[in-house]
């Protein structure tokens, strides 16, 4: 399935800072790459610029709770900072809300959903979850506050922490699949609204999160291509997360090389350290190899990905809490406003 002309080249020349002006930002990538962490970081960066932001989490992940250091009720907008709310989507709740909007009478909607067939159908019917999820995102982006001249969107920006790719792709694909299946009916026009939202480069952008490793990079390439050419969505940047930095500064590296070529000094060191100081050099080699491997994948990423790449450093275990997120938010702001 392909959809007309793609925003394509123009999308690529979009200034990175323009990402902060989008209404809806999808963060997607393979499982375990740090999507949730970077979604929170991006949302934080945006709220620091004065945007009213809501982070919508599609999968109920323990990660978000871990990062924020608090429990987040499901399907309830929860304010975690003056301009930042979080919301965990739950398809059945979204469906209930949707049905109530359609049927107008909440009691009838409940009757409908509690119908044995309907509830069974919804339990496993293909695509409904994804469709109502995107529907809920659409609905949230439509909501306004204030009256008359002061009327404005309730949230300037919605950051969507999408499910891991595979599922993540189908999640964005589903509205198109439905548009294809539904021949007519009210849902068809609603599905078209969703598609318009997803494909509007003014409003919506897909960012990809990846790691400098083979599988996540492959997945990022697939994702970028699918989002662009199959779904006709605008792709923003690829965040390369978890980049192991070179262990030594250039002058430290030079000093180490100097030490290694000084056999006399090495002998002295070897007399002080157990096993001739092997541990010192092994640990250095370990981290150098990791940094080098990252570098190779970053080069490969630059070759294979049409998007700009934002590198983010590896955060050591246990450091991804709100402070870690704020550090990442700073780096993201710097990179997106041309400081990188």
């Amino acid at each position, binding site marked *: 399935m392909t959809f007309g002309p793609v925003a394509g080249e123009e999308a690529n020349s979009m200034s990175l800072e323009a990402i902060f002006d989008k209404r809806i930002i999808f963060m997607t990538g393979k499982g375990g790459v740090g999507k949730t962490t970077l979604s929170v970081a991006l949302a934080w960066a945006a709220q620091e610029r004065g945007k009213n932001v809501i982070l919508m989490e599609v999968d109920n992940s323990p990660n978000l709770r871990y990062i924020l250091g608090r429990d987040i009720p499901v399907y309830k907008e929860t304010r975690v900072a003056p301009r930042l709310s979080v919301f965990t989507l739950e398809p059945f709740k979204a469906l209930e809300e949707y049905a109530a909007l359609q049927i107008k009478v909440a009691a009838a909607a409940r009757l409908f959903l509690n119908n044995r067939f309907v509830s069974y159908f919804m339990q496993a019917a293909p695509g409904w979850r994804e469709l109502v999820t995107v529907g809920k995102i659409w609905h949230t982006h439509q909501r306004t506050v204030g009256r008359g001249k002061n009327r404005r969107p309730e949230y300037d920006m919605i950051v969507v922490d999408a499910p891991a790719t595979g599922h993540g792709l189908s999640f964005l694909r589903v509205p198109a699949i439905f548009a294809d299946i539904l021949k007519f*009916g009210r849902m068809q026009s609603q599905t078209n609204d969703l598609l318009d939202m997803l494909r509007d480069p003014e409003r919506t952008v897909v960012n990809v999160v990846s790691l400098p490793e083979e599988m996540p990079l492959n997945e990022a390439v697939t994702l970028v291509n699918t989002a662009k050419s199959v779904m006709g969505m605008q792709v923003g940047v690829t965040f390369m997360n978890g980049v192991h930095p070179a262990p030594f500064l250039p002058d430290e590296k030079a000093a180490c090389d100097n030490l290694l070529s000084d056999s006399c000094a090495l002998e002295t060191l070897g007399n002080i350290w157990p096993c001739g100081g092997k541990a010192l050099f092994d640990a250095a080699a370990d981290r150098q190899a990791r940094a080098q491997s990252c570098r190779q994948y970053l080069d490969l990423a630059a070759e294979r990905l049409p998007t700009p790449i934002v590198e983010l450093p590896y955060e050591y275990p246990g450091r991804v809490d709100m402070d870690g997120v704020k550090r990442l938010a700073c780096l993201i702001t710097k990179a997106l406003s041309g400081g990188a």
Partner: protein
Amino acid sequence: MALADLLKEKSILVVCGSGGVGKTTISASLALLAAMEGRKVLVCTIDPAKRLADSLGLKELGNKETRIPDLVFAQAGLAPKGELWGMMLDSKTTFDDLICRIAPDEAVRNRVLNNPFYQNITTALAGSQEFSATEKLFELACRKDYDLIVLDTPPTRHALDFLDAPNRLTSFLEAKVIAWFLGPYLKAGKLGFRFLNSGAAMAFRVLEKVTGYQTLADIADFFLVFEGLYEGFAARAAKVRQLMSDPATAFVLVTSPQSPSLLEASFFLDRLLEEKMPLGEVVFNRVYTAPTELSSEDVQALGIQTTQKLPAHKTAIDALCANLRLAILLAEADKRSIRRFLEQSCQPIESVRVPFMRTDIHDMAGLHTVCCHLAG
């Protein structure tokens, strides 16, 4: 049971874990280890890294099992006593094969295979990969061609998805519901909906209004054809389930030694216990290890001592010491969180640690290195 015994005695290992923990690498390494010891092993994976698949000679295989050629082992200096086979799982083909197997004739088969709703179930439906993985496993296990099958489960955010998905699909296709759903449709014939069952009538009217008629016709037609197949389908699903709790099956859980991943891992273990499914082993993957027994303080003291003797090399020694101390701290942190995880578990856990390697694993030699760590 120790890992070596699992590899010797079990006939199925199901390797689970949340996304990004290295399931595929661990699956392949477990399979290799068993093959080295003389068993005929198949590793069934969903989406292997291309470099790894290529280097094992596993290109363009689709749903077919392929033996890893001797040459690949020889190049890595290995001579396995058994055989190592690999295959990539193709979800759609597995589904189609299943329909072909349970369909009574060609007409029914084609009607299912060509139904748009069926095609959506097999491709777009979350859980279809998990379902087809267990289905394929069952098919392979029935054939008894292998001493051991290692199943690398589909990549999901949550390890638990693998256990939930197949049930979700079978309950969806449940015969009673289908009959109830189809009753009015059948009575109405194909030209219109006139329902006798008022609940269904209402549900239908709303669905019809909201979705348009054509979709419902596809769905109804799918169920209509599938009704005859459900019994075979459900019987198989029940057997698959049985296979999962068979004493010859064991689950291997792969996790990183870091908090969010461990949290998921403990949910998964609780669930296995609840479902009475046998946990074989927990593999802690990518664990930081220190290349020394020295403590961070020892390193600091030795560093000071060294710079006093070699003041000209202070920059280098300081940098090297700082780096080694970081390695020690990371290793200690991982050791602590693993210990806490094992202590908090309500069942005794066999576990093994695979260190954080310098580069990613993409060939036979790399897998063999992992094997050495798995073997302890």
